[in-house]
């Protein structure tokens, strides 16, 4: 079951980096890694992001120990992300398959990770989101050529931020999320983690759609002022 989604994923990744690009990205990863290691001084990062050097090490050295660390940190989060989807297809088996799909994709696509475009956790989140979407698409037997990786591209061609800038932004978002009023954070959680659209959140909570919308607008608006 993992095979077909992986093939698509690998293809779209290879399209981004032709044989030449692949070499370039490894070189730039090495540069980025030096910078990051200086600022973190640790190979087992604990907080928000700093899993980037580990991911870069996986890409560069195909390091299984590093991959094991990454697995132990992210696998439980991916499993929760699968379990918390509000869908008739949600099950512990589905969540474990999701862990398997996502971690395998992380391993195979690690060379596509570019720290100047996104942090490791953002990168892994987008993979998990795409895999979860594909899982539902297949469970519903949706008949289309389109896979999630076509509709939610993994990374932009032109990264607007330098890596330091990007890291600062994510740190800001992180602390801003912590300060959100609980009702706004709750709406975001339902959308991002439970996979509900605005109108489904309204239906589930009994709130008017306008209220759901204004909570999202306030929350995202507040985060944007920090960027």
């Amino acid at each position, binding site marked *: 079951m993992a095979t077909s989604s992986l093939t698509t994923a690998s293809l779209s990744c290879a399209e981004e980096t032709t044989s030449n690009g692949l070499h370039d990205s490894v070189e730039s990863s090495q540069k980025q890694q030096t910078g990051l290691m200086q600022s973190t001084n640790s190979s087992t990062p604990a907080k928000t992001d700093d899993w980037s050097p580990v991911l870069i090490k996986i890409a560069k050295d195909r390091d299984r120990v590093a991959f094991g660390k990454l*697995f132990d940190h992210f696998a439980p989060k991916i499993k929760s992300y699968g*379990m918390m989807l509000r869908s008739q297809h949600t099950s512990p088996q589905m969540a474990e398959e999701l862990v398997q799909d996502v971690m*395998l994709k992380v391993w195979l696509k690690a060379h596509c990770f570019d720290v100047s475009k996104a942090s490791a956790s*953002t990168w892994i989140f987008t993979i998990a989101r795409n895999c979860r979407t594909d899982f539902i698409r297949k469970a519903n037997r949706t008949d289309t050529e389109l896979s999630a990786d076509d509709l939610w591209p993994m990374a932009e061609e032109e990264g607007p931020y330098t890596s330091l800038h990007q890291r600062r932004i*994510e740190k800001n978002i992180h602390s801003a*999320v912590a300060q959100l009023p609980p009702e706004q954070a709750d709406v*975001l959680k339902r959308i991002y983690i439970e996979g509900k659209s605005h109108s489904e959140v309204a239906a589930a909570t009994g709130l008017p759609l306008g209220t759901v919308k204004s909570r999202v607008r306030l929350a995202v608006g507040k985060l944007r002022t920090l960027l």
Partner: protein
Amino acid sequence: MSHFRPDIHWLTDYAAGTLPLSQALCVAVHLSFCPESRKQVEQLNSLGAIMFSNATNDSDSLPSEKLISEPQTDEDESINQELRAKVFDLIDTKDIKQQPSEITASLSANDSSNKAELLPHCLAKLIPEGIDQLDWKKLGTALSVARLPAGDGSREVALHKIKAGGRVSNHDHRGREVTVVLQGSFSDQNGLYLPGDFLVKEAGEEHRPIASEDAECICLSVLEAPVKFTGPLTGLINPFLKIKTGTR
């Protein structure tokens, strides 16, 4: 930057992955034209990563509370060693087989030259032979439609083509319609829409699109329910009595 962009709710639903595939396709096409929206989606992805990092499977606690007590203990409790071993087995087998075929596959994919290349990647995949080779059906003198196989059973996904200077019959929408301009431009009472512009017409809104004089206009549209034509010739040109899902 496009003048007509998806609002923050559309972009949030997109970044969270909750939009139906057909509507996500419209947003993805818009993003391929609009750096400003792409930047916003990147921020919303970062937000998603934080929600994801804080998500633990006890649904009563709020993410904001979780942030304060960063998870320490749950790191390995829910993942059994069998699954871990299985993933490690898989990376051993995939690693050797997968990598070289990726590169050859991408090279041959790039060979498919011609008109599909002018389309955003996501759309080109649905239209491998190019726009001209689609099965265009005339809906009157100015308007043609070609349905796309986007696999959405409850929405009609199609390209619409208005000839240069053409006027589309006044019509209202019984369901929401999302439109993204791909080529050319058209206008209605609300403004002029250029390539990349994203517009949403809610059920009941009437409009009468007119293509610009200089070129035909091609749009991607995703319609939630049939459109009702309100002008003359209704009997002749009302093709939307029933939504047809594209088939291949």
